[in-house]
């Protein structure tokens, strides 16, 4: 049975399976987009899925510009999608 962890996304708890990525956790909450672009303010989320495109950036535990698709979830991790994006 897979272990569960709780991460905090924009202040709200989200249950995720241990060992998955932050992007998997966000996707499974139904989110497709979690940041906006600098110039056009366009919504962006997961695109390349392997750390190449930097479209899925979020702030994690205070560290800015982390790629959600390659960061493993950890219990108590604080994900902030509303922080600056660059």
């Amino acid at each position, binding site marked *: *049975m*897979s*272990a569960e962890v709780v991460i905090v996304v924009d202040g709200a708890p989200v249950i995720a*399976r*241990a*060992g*998955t*990525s932050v*992007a*998997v956790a966000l*996707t*499974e909450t139904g989110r*497709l*987009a979690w940041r906006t*672009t*600098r*110039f*056009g303010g*366009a*919504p*962006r*989320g*997961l*695109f*390349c*899925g*392997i*750390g*190449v*495109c*930097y*479209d899925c*950036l979020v702030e*994690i*535990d205070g*560290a800015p*510009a*982390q*790629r959600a*698709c*390659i*960061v*493993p979830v*950890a219990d108590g991790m604080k994900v902030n999608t509303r922080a600056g994006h660059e």
Partner: protein
Amino acid sequence: MPATSELRVEVTVVGGGPAGLSSALTAAHAGLRVALVDAGSRLGGQFWRHPDPQSLAPGQAESDGQHSWRVFERMRAQLRGFIATGRVLHLAGHTAWSIERGESASVVRLTRSWDAVQLIAGSVRSEHVILCPGGYDRQLPVPGWTVPGVMAAGGVQALVKNGGRLDGRRAVVTGTGPFLLPVAAALTRAGATVVAVCEANPPSAWLTGTGSVLRMPSKIAEALEFGLVLGRHRIPYRTRTAVTRIHGTDHVEGVTLSRVRADGGIVPSAGARSHLEVDLVALGWGFTPDLGLAVAAGAEVRRDVDGSLVAVVDDDYRSSVAGLSIAGEATGVGGAMMAVHEGELAASAVASETGVGVGPARAARLRRAIARERAFARAMHGASALPAGWTAWLDPDTVVCRCEEVSAGDIRNACGDLGADDARTVKALTRAGMGWCQGRVCGFATCEVTASCAARSSTADDLRAMSKRVLASPVRLGDLAASDDTQGPR
């Protein structure tokens, strides 16, 4: 050990995918001390990306959806043995951002892949470096491809291999090449409904490489397996068809399909066949190798049969730079098993300088296997050509560079009004390829759109200009500052 410390080994292998695993293992078997630098957290690279054991659901296995998994398990088990004895240092979550070559040694500088990684070393110094950087999805922009819900085909597969669920989503897979099939299968496995797989090329394109296909029975078995998945789930496989427009603003609502003519031009599909309601689009136009480190190190490059930039190597996988070998997709996209074989030969050649290689009989077997695999890959590339004139389906406001939000119109203006006629100048004038991803996603397309303005094909020089990066990946200022403490190569 402080993060700024420098490791000294005999061989540095960059990349933990099929070629890198095989290189590291072969070098270790030959008695060499190896540092295996892997940007990911678990060995396997993209091909053998697999869920963390603790995230497995009941009844789910680590090997679900994998191919040649036993090859990976065998290599991983042996590597773990070498890691336990200290002969192989596994630097997981470490990204190589530069290579400096000196008289007799190279220094590979490292940064953490994400913030929580504790760096084991800030750099690795070794006589030999074997680059096995792999590749990623090659992208052709299409109007609407920045709308959330559109993903790279490989990204969809990575999401599923990471354990992601896509229950209830309606998906279309579009592009060209055999990779569209495993992506459709992965989507289905994750609970999505695949409405169609759209292959831009005609079925007849696959007949030209029949000879090389018949010499690879394992590939026929794989194709049959995917054919069964498509059949069982009644997934339509449409040939000569491409998604040429994606609709939606904050999420994908549907796509427009076009028919790809024999001359590569496109015409709108008729009636009910022209539109699909979907909320997930997977785009896959083949792969392009990650040549950032190879180009930065000064290795000679060329354009391969599929149009991608690849490294020039000799029969022993040595690049034009002394002490630098390159194996796997970076020498030409050809699949995981070819990468495994190339990695073994590359490391064997390195080992034969100081110890023992794999021996002539084994080397000859590997070369024969690679010749078969390369012929098969060429046939696949021939059958998976990009639609000629695809740049014509872009609107002026279609984003080409996602990071800097540079449109096709911006690039065409740089060519038309400002007189740019090569990708380097377009990059300087428009900032295409200068954002976070440093042109990894838009590099190929930017070169093609630029070339199309002058009614020519993109060249190796165009592609090299988009692959040349001062830093091979974004680096924290702190890591840069710390790297000043270490000496350069000698």
